[in-house]
């Protein structure tokens, strides 16, 4: 038997006290590990969603606003494009220095053309890119779009009184309605969506493009650099990064992470105080035992070591249990935080276990010092 075993046996004797001592550390570490795991996975999930939701750079023609008036009478104004975009610009965007960071370049053509006698806006994009460019669309009917087919926005379908399998007439040509979008709350609810080549024919603008949506989002992507390089490749175009979307979502995750750290820190602090108070109380209760140990020749260092080991065992076990519980809680709670593929993240658990163990030991120092400093006279009086 040595000091470690002596400490362990004493813990087993006072199980409820040991549980109470370790409870604060357990809760603190479990909270910390769970929140850290969830936030780190949320970051990945947010990034993944942004990647999947595609466009974070919009390339459109540079325009200038011209004011019209007659004398002192203002007649409004209009946007005048300096240049037009064409399908050929796709290759120029794809040739920038950071081309390997670009996931997709989707050309769009917007035009107003009659459809079955009703004036509606047509949105053209490559049929094959529909799913990648608008992954959140939910389509009633067939979800795949081919040339000669259209998807109708919910309002457009109502306006045209058409459903999946129906036909729409435009430019003396019949287009089969492949599906109807469920309402999105966006402008496309009132649009007819077709392959960009069909829309170019309808608009009589061969090769024309209204704007490009570029998906270049990935973790630590140099979006600003990509914007600058596209701007250089297309001098007449306005290139805008919708970075604020990324930043706002990252900020939300950061807020959650900070909140989690704050809560964990408070719980851990309370845990440390619980260790201190409980072990200090234990010292008071064990004055007699400490007196016996001093009488049989224990040095101060041995008494300190005994108390330290007792708390060390409690801290170690409660930290490991807390880390394990935190991992499990994070895994189970991940779907509720929008994480589709929960993973076990070990780094917060390792860090948390080390912090909990250290905190427990720190909390044990004052009572252990007090026990070691207990004069044999004081201890022996209780014998």
């Amino acid at each position, binding site marked *: 038997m040595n000091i470690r075993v002596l400490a362990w046996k*004493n813990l087993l004797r006072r199980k409820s006290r040991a549980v109470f001592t370790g409870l604060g550390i357990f809760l603190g570490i479990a909270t910390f590990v769970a929140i850290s795991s969830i936030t780190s996975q949320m970051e990945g999930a947010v990034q993944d969603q942004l990647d999947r939701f595609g466009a974070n750079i919009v390339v459109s023609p540079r325009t200038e606003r011209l004011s019209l008036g007659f004398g002192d009478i203002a007649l409004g104004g209009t946007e005048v494009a300096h240049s037009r975009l064409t399908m050929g610009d796709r290759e120029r965007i794809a040739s920038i220095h950071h081309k390997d960071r670009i996931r997709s370049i989707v050309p769009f053509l917007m035009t107003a053309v009659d459809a079955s006698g009703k004036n509606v806006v047509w949105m053209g994009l490559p049929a094959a890119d529909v799913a990648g460019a608008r992954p959140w669309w939910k389509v009633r009917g067939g979800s795949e779009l081919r040339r000669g087919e259209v998807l109708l926005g919910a309002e457009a379908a109502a306006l045209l009184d058409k459903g999946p399998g129906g036909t729409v007439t435009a430019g003396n040509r019949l287009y089969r309605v492949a599906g109807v979008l469920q309402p999105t709350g966006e402008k496309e609810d009132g649009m007819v969506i077709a392959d960009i080549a069909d829309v170019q024919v309808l608009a009589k603008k061969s090769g024309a493009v209204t704007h490009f949506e570029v998906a270049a989002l990935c973790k630590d992507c140099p979006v600003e650099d990509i914007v600058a390089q596209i701007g250089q490749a297309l001098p007449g175009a306005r290139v805008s990064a919708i970075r604020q979307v990324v930043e706002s979502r990252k900020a939300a995750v950061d807020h959650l992470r900070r909140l989690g750290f704050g809560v964990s820190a408070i719980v851990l602090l309370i845990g440390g105080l619980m260790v201190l108070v409980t072990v200090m109380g234990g010292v008071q209760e064990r004055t007699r035992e400490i007196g*016996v140990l001093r009488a*049989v020749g224990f*040095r101060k*260092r041995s008494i300190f070591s005994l108390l330290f080991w007792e708390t060390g065992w409690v801290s170690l076990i409660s930290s490991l249990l807390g880390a394990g519980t935190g991992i499990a809680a994070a895994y189970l709670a991940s779907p509720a935080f929008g994480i589709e593929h929960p993973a076990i993240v070990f780094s917060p658990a390792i860090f948390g276990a080390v912090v909990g163990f250290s905190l427990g030991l720190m909390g044990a120092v004052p009572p252990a010092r007090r026990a070691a400093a207990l004069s044999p006279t004081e201890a022996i009086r209780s014998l």
Partner: protein
Amino acid sequence: MEPIIRLKDVSMVYGVNGTRATALAGVSFDVRRGEYVVITGESGSGKSTLLTVLGGLQVPTGGAVRIGGADLSALPADGLADFRRETIGFVFQAYHLLPYLTARENVMVPMSPERISPREKASLAGELLAAVGLAGMEDRLPSQLSGGESQRVAIARALVHDPPVILADEPTGNLDSATGKQVLDLFSSLHARGKTVLMVTHNLSNLARATRSIRLRDGRIEDDRTRRPLTAKPLAV
């Protein structure tokens, strides 16, 4: 031969909230190696205080205590701990065994801080328990032992470091007369093996085994007499 214990004008005064209580007032005596000294006296006469001073658990407020050549008042706290471990074996009236440890483990407690193999510690504890007549009871908890058996475990614990001096505070105080006699037989055998025994007791029947008796009253020695000649051989180390 230099005495193993020498007290010279030892006094112990407690002061609490301005009041002073004198537990020992100028106590002086020598104890030769191998003596069996019984210290008697009324409650409050200073017997237990004298024992704690002899054991290095308290430093007297006045006078000098030398045990085994060491001046206790000159030793630092760790030096006193080492002194207790190597020189003194304590036996208490209430045994003071650790309730969560078996008899063997209780005997091993004084060896806990030492870097000795667990097997060696257990072996020594087993030998000591056998020597006090508790062979086969090594794995019992104190709650499974009688008072006499518990006191034997406490005596075995006191002998772990083979100390030359045994200090016993009313070791039969919690025992019936038959069990008490067995425990006293154990002290007699230790004395016969050359240990110096100082026993505080109320029980005057314990005097019969002693080579010397000291009676305290109000912190002073009232009577100090040799009861029979010292015949024990010094302990062979």
